[in-house]
């Protein structure tokens, strides 16, 4: 006969204990600990102005990391993000300065910014075409576009630093309700990213796709489109992140954005996103990841720590984060 017994089993497994529930927020706790530690040592660190600084300084990478998190959730990776930051900033700069395209004078900053959005989308679309359309491994595809985008941007800038007109800096400084624009954009991007992931059908389907693409297809999802969407969003985030960062700097240097993809990936992973896909979130995860690293560097700056100590301290704190992370998972 068929399997006999019925269930005498509670519907779900045992609830996690209080420790584990606490440890689930390991990076957040660590961030708090770091803040408290620096705050205890330095009164300057505790000022609201400094908190604002940290937010603003995090904004560029954080926005990139929002897109990166989405890509990582699909089980992919976007190595081209830093190069797209560069390309976007370079194109925006050239447009604002004018004379780049013969006959085209300087165009206003807001318009240039608006024109960068399609550029970011287009970069994302190229990745999407290669990964989702062409089925090329994301690491390889985006490694290639990294070189392409960076090379293109270097050509555009002729490998020279590109100083931007002051209007650009205004963008980085304008404050709304006491908070600078970059901080708003960061918060908006994080909120939108998280809302997309947790509250829209698309977001939930991305998690499914990341967990098992074959199963996702069998479940009737449009996997190609979903995957493409993730890369397009990442391209958009990278170019927005590039604009925010450059609006604070005032110059597009030839190394602009280099390795920022790496910082973004690290922040996402630190925040609990899995490189194998299907797991992760922007809020609090990735945001906490970005803030943790930025807060450390900020605190070390303020304490005038030995420059050589920075990587060692940041690395050690990451390791502690890793240790705490161990607690959040059940055994096995």
């Amino acid at each position, binding site marked *: 006969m068929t399997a006999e017994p019925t269930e005498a089993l509670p519907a779900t497994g045992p609830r996690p204990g209080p420790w584990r529930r606490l440890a689930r927020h390991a990076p957040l706790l660590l961030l708090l600990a770091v803040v408290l530690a620096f705050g205890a040592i330095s009164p300057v660190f505790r000022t609201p102005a400094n908190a604002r600084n940290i937010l603003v300084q995090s904004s560029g990478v954080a926005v990139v990391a929002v897109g990166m998190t989405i890509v990582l959730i699909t089980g992919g990776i976007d190595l081209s993000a830093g190069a797209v930051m560069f390309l976007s900033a370079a194109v925006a700069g050239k447009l604002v300065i004018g004379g780049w395209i013969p006959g085209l004078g300087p165009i206003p900053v807001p318009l240039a910014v608006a024109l960068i959005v399609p550029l970011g989308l287009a970069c994302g679309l190229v990745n999407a075409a290669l990964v989702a359309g062409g089925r090329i491994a994301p690491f390889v595809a985006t490694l290639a576009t990294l070189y392409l985008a960076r090379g293109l941007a270097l050509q555009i800038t002729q490998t020279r630093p590109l100083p931007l007109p002051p209007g650009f800096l205004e963008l980085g400084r304008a404050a709304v309700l006491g908070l600078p624009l970059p901080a708003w954009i960061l918060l908006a991007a994080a909120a939108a990213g998280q809302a997309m992931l947790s509250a829209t059908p698309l977001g939930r389907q991305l998690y499914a796709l990341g967990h098992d693409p074959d199963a996702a297809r069998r479940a009737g999802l449009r996997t190609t489109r979903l995957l493409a969407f993730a890369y397009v969003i990442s391209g958009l985030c990278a170019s927005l992140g590039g604009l925010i960062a450059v609006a604070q700097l005032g110059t597009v240097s030839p190394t602009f954005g280099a390795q920022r993809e790496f910082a973004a990936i690290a922040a996402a992973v630190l925040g609990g996103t899995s490189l194998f896909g299907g797991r992760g979130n922007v809020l609090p995860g990735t945001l906490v990841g970005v803030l943790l690293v930025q807060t450390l560097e900020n605190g070390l700056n303020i304490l005038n720590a030995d420059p050589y100590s920075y990587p060692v301290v940041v690395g050690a704190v*990451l390791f502690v984060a*890793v240790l705490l992370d161990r607690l959040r998972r059940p055994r096995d």
Partner: protein
Amino acid sequence: MTRPATPDRAATTAGTPPAPRAGGEAARALLSEYAPLLLAAAYFLAASATVPGLGTPRNLSNLVVNVLPLLVAALGQTAVLIAGGIDLSIPAVVAACSVASARLMTAAGPGGLDVPSPQMVPAAVAIALGLGAGIGLFNGLAVAALRVPPFLVTLSTSMVVGGATLWATHSRNIANLPASFTDLAYGRVGGVPLFVPLVAALALAMHLMLGRTLIGRWLYAVGQNARASRVSGVPVGRVTACAYAVSGLCAAVAALLYTARLETGLPTMGREILLDVVGAAVIGGTSLAGGKGTVLGTVFGALLLALIDNSLNLIGLEYYAIMMAKGLVILLAASIDLLRARLLGRATP
């Protein structure tokens, strides 16, 4: 299992369909195993038609010698990727081993200058290898025991080790290495640069290890399904630790090769190689998802990358053009590989 097979059982077991033609089989196997080789060869042929000096024996041997340290590091990364991990600490390990070995084989002379102390060379080499393997082992144990993402574990080791290396040297290079060490870079056996057979032996050893030994088979198993491996008695922790130790050891070997040829212990050695180290493996068919990869693939992956650099270098393109060309060639390689896979998949009558 020793029961006599009934006739119809034999029939079902063997699989009823006729085997496909033997020729097609061979071609298929060749295609799949040696795809990166074919890619590298194809690229080489195409490029040598247009790039002056590419095909000269002089340049070819130069190319092979150039790629050796990167290749060694990429082989270690391959082992880790197969086991389902990733090792971001390779550059830091390279720097640490470079500095440690150089420091050991030089004594501080008057005025803080480095003075060669040749008698220390073997010890320095041994210590560098031990250091590399040790850091690798630490990574491996942390990954295995804590079961946390290797990305984070090796990222933090990388920062700590790399930062500590810079700190310990305060950015200073270590010079005046003993000639008995630096001459290794110029040494030849039978007209072949010494490092070539050395690295070839290492690659062969890795090849045998991965394909033929127990631990190699376990690496693939762990990379594919760690839980199933554990249930089947695979010592998952030890296997994982071993992969990272191998990676650390390979990084140390790479560091020694680099250090010998630059004649300097460099606290920034290898800083920029990470993408190439992972790239060589992945282009060679290793999967970032684990359980897949070969030594041969990585060899050709590394060769392809070096070939791209070398050929673009020889053309004298603009800097940015070189970058873009590199991107295009990587894409080309990937799409050819894909095309091949698709053709293979469609081979249904």
